[in-house]
């Protein structure tokens, strides 16, 4: 009985590094004056979204399927929040959907465990 080994492709590594940097730079925007102006609960929603996106990137870094799934949920949540609050960002959404499509190609090769 042999162990299954999973090797993270360089492209996924690049996606993760860019993603970690984006999360790092998005963190301060949770409590920026513009975000606060959106309403009392918007910073809370936005903050949780960033935290879950960070977790998704950690999952992708470890080449786990749940990373892709969580990443997809965060995109979905982001789109819904954007549409509800009239802050829908086309460029950001397109970027994340492209990443998601790329990740979908690697999905079957990923580890299904936690």
């Amino acid at each position, binding site marked *: 009985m042999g162990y299954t080994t999973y090797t993270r492709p360089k492209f996924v590594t690049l996606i993760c590094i860019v993603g970690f940097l984006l*999360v790092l730079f998005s*963190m*301060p925007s*949770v*409590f*920026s*004056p513009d975000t*606060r102006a959106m309403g*009392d*609960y918007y*910073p*809370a929603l936005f*903050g*949780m979204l*960033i*935290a*879950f996106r*960070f*977790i998704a990137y*950690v999952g992708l870094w*470890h080449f786990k399927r749940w990373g892709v799934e969580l990443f997809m949920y965060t995109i979905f949540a982001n789109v819904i929040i954007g549409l509800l609050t009239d802050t829908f960002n086309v460029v950001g959404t397109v970027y994340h959907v492209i990443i998601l499509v790329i990740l979908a190609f690697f999905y079957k090769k990923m580890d299904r*465990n*936690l």
Partner: protein
Amino acid sequence: MFFLTLFRESISFALHALRVNRLRTTLSLLGITIGIFAIIAVFTAVDSMERKVRSSLESLGENVIFVQKWPWTFGPDYPWWKYMNRPLPAVRETEEILRRTENVDAAVFTGNIRKTLYYKTSFIENAQILVTSKGYEQVKTFELSGGRFFTDQESETGSAVCVVGYGVSQALFAGQDPVGLELKLYGQKVQIIGTFAREGESMLGNSHDNMVAVPAEFAQRYVDLETDQVNPSILVKGRNGISVEDLKDELMGTMRGVRRLKPGADDNFSLNEVSLLSSQSESIFRVFGTAGWIIGAFSILVGGFGIANIMFVSVKERTNQIGIQKALGAKNWFILTQFLFESVVLCIIGGLIGLGLVYLGAVIASRAMDFEFVLTSSNVILGLTISAMIGIISGFIPAYSASQLDPVEAIRSGM
């Protein structure tokens, strides 16, 4: 139900871990506490000041235009020498505005004089005397705690009557009801017919607390109201449904007619509107908010790294315990949740301490400065959200690494 049991167990594990390492926990909490304190303290101060300025601006009146000699905003190369030679607004121009315009609901002449007020043996030096023509109560928002305001007849005939502010009343009459008493101004006896309700400090210095209002017709018997020292203004309020722009357009034409300006000649008056001040104050508060945001962001970042570090240490210390838990059947996600909760609880405790410090600071500052600092619910939610977010972000990697430990290796490492 199962999740709640897991949640309770994770919390108790977390609290136990925090209890056994008090000093380490306290030190790692400090980063988050300071970060949350920095951000929320700045936001609380800015929000409180903004609210105060907004209420001061509201007291100036919505849909009100100030006809004055000087504009409230200047460009970089404004021709101040031209403004210097402009004539000052006069009481008679107020009447002309009322007569010639259609969209104006009320117009009032106001000015400020500094003069000594006497009551028996007591006096207030350089008291602020507010000079108004009739219709002041239609343009400005204020409340009276006793008596009444001038009647139109008193304003037109320049009766020797006045309405005093709370501060003046306290200084001269110390608890006595001043209505009906007489003050001495310009050597004349002036009867007090009303008192302004207490308003508190105003960020724009337009609180009635330290003012004594007298009719303009009375004041101009003793002092020239068309001087820069009086800072005369005509406050014009538009009718309901008339926009400030429409009112401004009509006033522009009317004032040019009143001043008999030829076509093509520059205006020799300024039409100032409250929205100018509110947009300026908004931009100032935005700068303060951004400064607090930048300072706080760095503090939070440092605090987050501190928490991540302490969680890695915690995982390392409890590797053996993790191994035993896994050997007994604990799932990966149970270990992950346990450490993640510990990190989130740690950050939320740090955040709560920070919020407590802000609340304490707000109470102390409010008492010391006679200015109300309020820690709002939105700032409390924001503080707790940031804490939870930092807890998740900084605790996830250590928690995940703990969950991935091999039970045999983990038990061996602790022996």
